[in-house]
């Protein structure tokens, strides 16, 4: 059928379990056409046309730096992720990586082009996405994304320092 997402046991299991449960609860979305403009269909979590259509926004945090904001509505869910950035190098790498992905948001479908302020990256999932893609797979994907981002950034950090070391070696050989 489809590739299974590899299950991982990590130290962050309670955090990811809490996120999974909250996402499963928030993912009750259905088609809802705009009440303000005829023939328009807008994600209510972005437009916020009426208070009755919005759910209470909810934050889940593991520590000061890593948190997730989940805002739901009747036809869309917005998930904003704050990624752990321990030092300046990680900050730059994170910013670059997120920008890379957000510039290709069209192909990504569920990604938002700009993150919500105070967060690093945001997903916007509408009822149309939920109709073409399985909801439980979307939740699995978000969890997988969270696990992978941390790994990617630490891998990139190691790559940067090893490349820098090799460059410096080659350069200083000239002066030997």
């Amino acid at each position, binding site marked *: 059928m489809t590739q299974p997402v590899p299950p991982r046991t990590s130290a962050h299991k*309670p*955090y990811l*379990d*809490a996120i999974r*449960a*909250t996402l*499963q*609860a*928030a993912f*009750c979305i259905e088609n809802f056409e705009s*009440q*303000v*403009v*005829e023939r328009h269909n807008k994600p209510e979590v972005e437009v916020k*046309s*009426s*208070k*009755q259509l919005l*759910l*209470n926004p*909810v*934050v*889940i*945090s*593991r*520590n*000061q730096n890593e*948190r997730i904001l989940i805002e*739901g509505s009747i036809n869309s869910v917005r998930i904003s992720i704050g990624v752990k950035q321990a030092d300046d190098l990680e900050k730059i790498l994170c910013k670059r990586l997120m920008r890379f992905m957000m510039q290709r948001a069209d192909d990504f479908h569920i990604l938002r082009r700009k993150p919500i302020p105070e967060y690093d990256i945001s997903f916007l999932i509408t009822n149309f996405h939920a109709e073409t893609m399985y909801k439980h797979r979307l939740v699995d994907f978000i969890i997988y994304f969270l696990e992978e981002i941390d790994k990617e950034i630490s891998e990139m950090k190691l790559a940067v320092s090893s490349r820098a070391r090799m460059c410096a070696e080659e350069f200083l050989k000239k002066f030997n």
Partner: protein
Amino acid sequence: MITQKFVNKVTLEFGRLIEYDHLWEDNPAIKEAMPHLRISKPEIKKKKKDDDLSTNVVEPDENEWKRLIDDMKYVRALEYVLQNAPVRAKDPDKKKKAASMALSTMMKIKTSEISDAVNSIPVPLRDTLMKYVYKGFENPKDYSSSALLTWHEKVLAATGLGSIVRVLTDRRTV
């Protein structure tokens, strides 16, 4: 834009709703449509005095709570705060005070005792407990997120996904 189709639909569906649920009066589409709707003014009941949210405010008494904390009766103290949580209050300071009471009590209860604490709290109050867990996540500086994650797990095990849905949808926020 108000079309005839919209007017008919709204008259049928919302006419009754406006009578019972006053939130709909603020909906911009409804406001615009009101002059066109075939609902006569007297049918829209005024807000009853006891619907007024500000008169139904309860609040946990700080002294009573301190007394229970000093006696080391943490679970009883938590139950007391949950019972009198200011869910209907509009004043953010009241809510903040009650939240700090509830969350500091939750932090005092040991990790091994959390599941017993959750089971001893009566079922109707477990939703409020979940609301406070999410409230605690908003301030990771003040409240230990790892402890809160344990609370989240245990409350979820006791109540199921329904409690999270109620946190997301309930207007009576904590």
